[in-house]
């Protein structure tokens, strides 16, 4: 065997390489005092290829049209939280592209999604993005009215409409499924069930998070200046932390984060916090790490003294601080909740457009929707979820705060300033990335085999739907 061949055989297979000489996410978590559950302690990565991803998907309006035709019409989408429609008659209007749905609770345990258009001359029955409570849905133009169950109640001057048969004029519906406090809808009558779509492995994860027992304490919406897929991809890896979020890197194991995917529609990363970035090894003390730790909601434990004692680690101390603070805030016993769940960033993507962060200190949900009028823009929403107080009534879900292009995320009421600054940094990149892709001589983007696997996994699913193969 030649020297060259021996050398080659020592190289890891594509996708097998990890940050050299640094502990893996699993090794970091294994050292924690309160051990993590199985859903944290598992890995599910495979190499999916290393070809470039075509740029036209981000720049071509025809690609966006194909997505509206073949992807958004056939996928399960997070339409709203159940908490926004708790009572019979409550509704929320979910809009995707040109489509709009009235998500209505029609019985205590039944939610329906009606296409939001009068069957007479097409007027929307409710304005986009609104919510409220109704006993019936009445069109504001000529007063045609539907019962909560979608059956036609009244066509004004019915003597003039002998051709309108009530049984043929019920409001058309999309499919609805409920999961963990979320309402999902799908326009495709032939799509797999939500359970099949998300897969058993992921369902075993989400069933342990108790997201149905949380409420939205902050909801922010902002239009981002980039294609929706580009915007999503900005949140799928921790590879960008060192350069984009330098204030975070000292307390984030960015380059040794873990990446997994489960079937075609779910992927995740686990990014450990309270440990220094491998890129900055040796440059920060444990005290520096805890001093620079950014909480998603610093109001919970922002003022707690962070001075470390002899031999204490930043990670353990921060876990203890967060445990105590959240126990006080929500009047719950978190002694059995692992350090990792309290501290770390767990980012799951549910294809096509939802991120769930089930961690305690980073309790967000993101939703990305394409701007129906501009494929270079995205309607981005952040929901922060807190546990419902055990001894109090469920607070009303927060009102949506709409930010304009010039506003910082830090200006939104309820948004933590430190976290808002991180989102501003991500947005600033997107402006230049969208413009750069359109200016580029290179017709594809190049991805890391491991750290950017979620982007490849996501784009492969996009391709399957757009090409009609899914």
């Amino acid at each position, binding site marked *: 065997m030649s020297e060259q061949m021996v050398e080659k055989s020592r190289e890891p297979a594509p996708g097998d390489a990890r940050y050299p000489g640094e502990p893996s996410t699993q090794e970091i978590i294994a050292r924690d005092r309160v051990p993590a559950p199985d859903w944290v302690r598992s890995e599910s990565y495979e190499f999916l290829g290393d070809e470039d991803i075509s740029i036209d998907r981000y720049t071509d309006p025809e690609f966006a049209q194909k997505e509206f035709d073949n992807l958004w019409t056939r996928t399960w989408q997070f339409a709203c939280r159940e908490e926004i429609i708790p009572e019979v008659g409550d509704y929320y209007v979910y809009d995707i592209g040109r489509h709009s749905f009235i998500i209505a609770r029609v019985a205590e345990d039944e939610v329906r999604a009606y296409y939001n258009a009068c069957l007479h001359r097409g007027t929307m029955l409710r*304005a986009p993005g*609104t*919510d*409220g*409570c*109704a006993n019936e849905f*009445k069109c*504001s133009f000529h007063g045609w009215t539907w019962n909560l169950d979608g059956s036609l109640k009244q066509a004004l001057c019915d003597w003039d409409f002998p051709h309108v048969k009530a049984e043929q004029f019920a409001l058309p519906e999309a499919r609805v499924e409920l999961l963990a406090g979320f309402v999902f809808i799908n326009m495709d009558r032939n799509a797999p069930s939500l359970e099949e779509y998300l897969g058993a492995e992921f369902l075993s994860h989400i069933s342990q998070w108790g997201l149905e027992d949380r409420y939205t304490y902050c909801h922010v919406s902002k239009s981002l200046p980039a294609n929706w897929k580009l915007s999503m991809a900005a949140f799928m890896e921790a590879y960008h932390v060192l350069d984009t979020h330098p204030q975070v890197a000292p307390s984030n194991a960015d380059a040794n984060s873990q990446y997994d995917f489960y079937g075609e529609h779910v992927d995740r990363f686990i990014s450990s916090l309270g440990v220094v970035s491998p890129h900055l090894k040796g440059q920060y003390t444990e005290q520096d790490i805890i001093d620079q730790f950014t909480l998603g909601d610093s109001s919970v434990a922002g003022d707690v003294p962070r001075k470390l004692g002899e031999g204490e680690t930043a990670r353990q101390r921060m876990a203890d601080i967060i445990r105590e603070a959240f126990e006080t805030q929500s009047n719950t016993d978190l002694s059995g909740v692992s350090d990792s769940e309290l501290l770390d960033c767990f980012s799951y993507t549910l294809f096509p457009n939802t991120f769930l962060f089930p961690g305690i200190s980073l309790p967000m949900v993101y939703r990305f929707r394409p701007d129906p009028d501009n494929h270079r823009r995205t309607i981005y929403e952040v929901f922060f979820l807190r546990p419902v107080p055990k001894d109090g009534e469920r607070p*009303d879900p927060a009102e949506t705060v709409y930010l304009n292009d010039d506003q910082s995320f830090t200006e939104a009421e309820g948004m933590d300033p430190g976290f808002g600054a991180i989102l501003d940094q991500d947005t600033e990149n997107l402006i230049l990335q969208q413009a750069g892709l359109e200016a580029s001589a290179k017709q594809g983007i190049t991805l890391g085999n491991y750290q950017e696997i979620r982007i490849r996994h996501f784009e492969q699913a996009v391709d399957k739907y757009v090409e009609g193969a899914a």
Partner: protein
Amino acid sequence: MSEEFVRFCETSEIPSGAKKHAKINGTWVLVCNVKGRLLAVSAICSHQEKPLFTGRVRNCKISCPVHGARFDLETGEALDLPATKPIATYAVRVVGDWVEVKL
């Protein structure tokens, strides 16, 4: 606008989370108790003059049960289509056991 406050109802009739409508000098008025705070507005939607009596109150906003327009109870501002015009707001106070409103 009248200079005088007039009795609207007894305070016990509008506990926290409740609302009450009544006609005062020919004007329909709606008083809402939002977590202990009383707010008085026109009880008629500015969109198609439908009553707001049974509208849902959440986060200090009321939504019209007929077509879904929403109004800020503090300012009267129309927040959602199909309404584009505000509703009137009125001063409200408690004197003894009575809620009083000034049109």
